[in-house]
C-alpha cells in the first residue's frame, strides 16, 4: 500500500469508535460503523492532510465513498489536479 492509502487508513482508524486492524482497499466504508458526522470529520482530516477540497454531501450516497480504495483513488485524482482545481466548487 502506498503513502496516500496508508495515511487515509490511519485517518479512518483515528475516527472509528473501535479501530480495526484489518482495513484494506476493498473494505467498504459501511462496514466501518462510521456515522455521518464522523465522515464529515474524516473528509475534513483528509482535506487538511493532503491540501485538497473534496466535494462531499452527507445526504448523498456517492461512489467515491463506497470503499477505502475508492476514497484513495479520488484523493489521488484531486492531488493530481492541484489545490486550485480540486475545489469543491466543481
Amino acid at each position, binding site marked *: 500500500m502506498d503513502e496516500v492509502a496508508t495515511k487515509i487508513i490511519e485517518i479512518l482508524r483515528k475516527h472509528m469508535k473501535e479501530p480495526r486492524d484489518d482495513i484494506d482497499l476493498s473494505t467498504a466504508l459501511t462496514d466501518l460503523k462510521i*456515522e*455521518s*458526522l464522523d*465522515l*464529515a470529520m474524516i*473528509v*475534513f482530516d483528509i482535506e487538511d492532510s493532503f491540501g485538497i477540497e473534496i*466535494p*462531499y*454531501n*452527507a*445526504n*448523498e450516497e456517492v461512489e467515491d465513498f463506497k470503499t477505502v480504495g475508492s476514497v484513495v483513488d479520488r484523493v489521488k485524482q484531486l492531488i493530481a489536479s492541484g489545490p486550485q482545481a480540486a*475545489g*469543491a*466548487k466543481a
Partner: protein
Amino acid sequence: MIAAVGTRRRVVVTGMGAVTPIGLDVPEFWASIRAGKCGVGRIENFPLDDLYIHIAGEVKGFDPAKHVKSKKIQYGERYSWFAGRAADEAWTQSGLPTPYANPYRSACIIGTGAGGYSTVETAYRDLFINNKRATHPLTLLRIIGSSAASHVGIEYGIKGPTFATCSACSTATHAIGIVLDYIRNGLVDVGVAGASEAVLTYGSMRTWQAMRVLSPDGCFPFSKNRNGTVLAEGSGILVLEELEHAKRRGAKILAEILGFGMSSDAKDMVNPDIEGPRTAMQMALDDSSLDPSEIDYLNAHGTATSLNDANETNAIKLVFGEYASKLAISSTKSMHGHLLGAGGGVEAICCIKAIEEGFVPPTVNYAERDPKCDLDYVPNVGRDKPVRYAMSNSFAFGGLNAVLVFGRPPA
C-alpha cells in the same frame, strides 16, 4: 386526561407575527404559502467569496429604520430586528395595552439558536483582521442570546419571566411550550413566545458547509432527490393568553393550544432516533386528549436531509398507525427554508392559519416518491380541507424534540 382539560386553565393565541424570506408579516407570509412560493435563492446579502453553497432563504429588503418601530431595537442586531418586528405585529394584533397593565403576570420568552451571529463576525473581523482598537460598544449586547427577549420585554413592559430558550431547531417550539405551561399553571396570564434567527453570514455558512448537510441547489423535503437542507432566517412569534383573560377583554381568539410534548433522544448529536420524536408526538397528543385520527394536518420538521425525513416518517407511522397514510403532512420549509431556531415559530403560524382558513400548505419542490418516505406530503399544491386540529413537529440537532398541537378557537 379529558377531566383535566375541563379543570385546567386553557391557553389561546391572540396574536401572531412573522418575518420570513417569503413575507415580512403574517398576511404576506401566508399568501406566499398559499401560492406555494419558494423563498430560496442565490445569496445576495453578503459576498460569497469561496463558499460552494450559494443558496439560502434570505430576508430581503428588510430595513430596520422602516420595519422596526422601536429606536432601541433598531440599535440591536439583525436577529433582534426580526424579533422586534414580529413581536410588534403579534402584540398589535392581540390588542393588549402597552405597557401591559399587570406586568408581573406576563412573560416574554423569545429564543434563538445562535444569537447575534453577524455581530460576532463583524467584531472578530475588526479585531483580528482589521486591527481595530476596540469593538463597537454595543457588540456584547447585540450578541447575547437573550437580547431579543430583553428588547421585546422592554417594549411592552413585561416584567414576569423573560429569557431565551436555546435548543437549535426546536428553540421556538420550546419557548411556546414553556409559556403555555406558565399560563396553564397560573404563573402568568399572557406571554410573548417564539424565536428569531439570523445566521446567514460567511463564517456561519462555512461552519454549515463543513458539516456537509446543506443542499447546493434547493430544499426538497421528503422527495427522493432531497440532498440537504437550506438555511434561512427570520422570526415567528405568538402572543399566548389565558382563555378567560382573552374573553374578558373581548380579544379575537385565533386558535387554542391544546398540547405540548418534549423529549430528548440522549443518543447522538446528528443521527436522530425514532423513539424521541415518537414520544414527543405522543405526549402532545395525550396532553390534547386527542385521538391521532383527529389531527387533520401535520406540519413536519421536514428538513430535506436524507436522515431526518425518513426518520420522521417512521416516527409518524408509529404514532398514527394506519391513519398515518391518510394524514396530510407537509414541510413548509420547502417554501420558507430552514429558519433553525425560529422554524417552530413560523410553522406554528402555518398550523394556525391552516385551521383558520381550512387550507393545508403544500410541500413544494416535490419531484419523486422515496420508498423511505411514503406518506401524503401534499406535494406541490396546497389543499382546501377542513382542519380541526394541527400538529407542529420540531426536531433539533442533539436529538431535542418538541411538538405542539393547535385547535380551533373555543366556541
